[in-house]
């Protein structure tokens, strides 16, 4: 999926990853896509089914906040699908209505799904 925000995040990440090498990452072209395209990247799901049959839930991470038809998806699926758009760290804890849940938890309609992590650890990678 490649919304404007996602494209901007990818460009920023590419630049930060290549800072040490001094190589500039090319800015990808901005391309608009809608929510249905976002969700149909999961195999076997038809857009009509998503829009009419999946219930909407609030999805939160950091300052990112939106309502999406993610009922019936697992936490792992939502994490993967929104990791770039919502900048979700791989190790962020998942909550449903404030309660910690596991990756295989299936999401019900009208809940609030939040990924949380306290930020600011320098040692994200080590060298020997």
């Amino acid at each position, binding site marked *: 999926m490649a919304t404007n925000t996602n494209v901007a995040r990818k460009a*920023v990440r590419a630049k930060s990853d290549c800072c040490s090498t001094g190589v500039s990452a090319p800015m990808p072209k901005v391309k608009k896509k809608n929510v249905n395209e976002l969700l149909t990247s999961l195999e076997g799901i038809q857009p009509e089914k998503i829009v009419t049959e999946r219930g909407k839930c609030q999805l939160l991470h*950091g*300052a990112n906040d939106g309502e999406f038809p993610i009922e019936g998806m697992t936490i792992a699926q939502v994490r993967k699908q929104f990791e770039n758009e919502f900048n979700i760290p791989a190790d962020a*804890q998942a909550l449903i209505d404030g309660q910690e849940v596991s990756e295989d938890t299936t999401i019900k309609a009208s809940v609030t799904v939040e990924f949380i992590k306290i*930020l600011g650890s320098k*040692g*994200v990678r080590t*060298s*020997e």
Partner: protein
Amino acid sequence: MKNMRIKVVGCGGIGSWLIDPLCTMLNYSDVKSEVTLIDGDVYEEKNRTRQNFTEIGAKATVTADRLKERFDKIKIADQPVYVTKNNIKLLIKENDVVLLCVDNHKTRKLVSDHVGSLKNSILVNGGNEYTDGNIVVCVRKNNKDITPPLNKNHPELNNPQDHNPGDKRTGCQAMQVSAPQLIATNFAIASLMLNSMYLIVNNLDDMKYNEVNVDIIINQSRSVTRK
């Protein structure tokens, strides 16, 4: 006149942008303040890309010296040391307001556990990744948590995988490689911490949040009350 003792732990990417406006706010307020800057690191030329300083040297000391010339109503002190388990009880005391601007969870856990053992304390933690970050405000009053401690909603702090620079490295312990940082993100976090200090100085009861998240890509922040 209200008295306030403030300990700023970390004078780097976030702390160096927080300290000047913090002292400006305190110098012209009705609060009689003592501000202690705590950091064992030194400013180097490479830090000029995103840290606020004029002189190379021990971060806490050169910053304190610079601020003493500007602000005559605040008592400003420096402790050019890293916070460790051996010195934390001397550095952070009962009734302190701690502004935690460090870049590792080891120190966060150490400070959080210590302020959690005090009867009265306020901890404002700030941290960021490349384009996003958050602050968490932890208040203790009369030996009770008024807001959750730092690790309650962030259990990743219970077993930090990074390193406190004040701790000795043993054997073949690997050097940490810094993740790249942006001045815009550091500054955004410093601003959020200053916002919370405004309420702490004026009326903490007006604070309707205990966590604020910010993302500089979408240029948005979201405040949260966690239980």
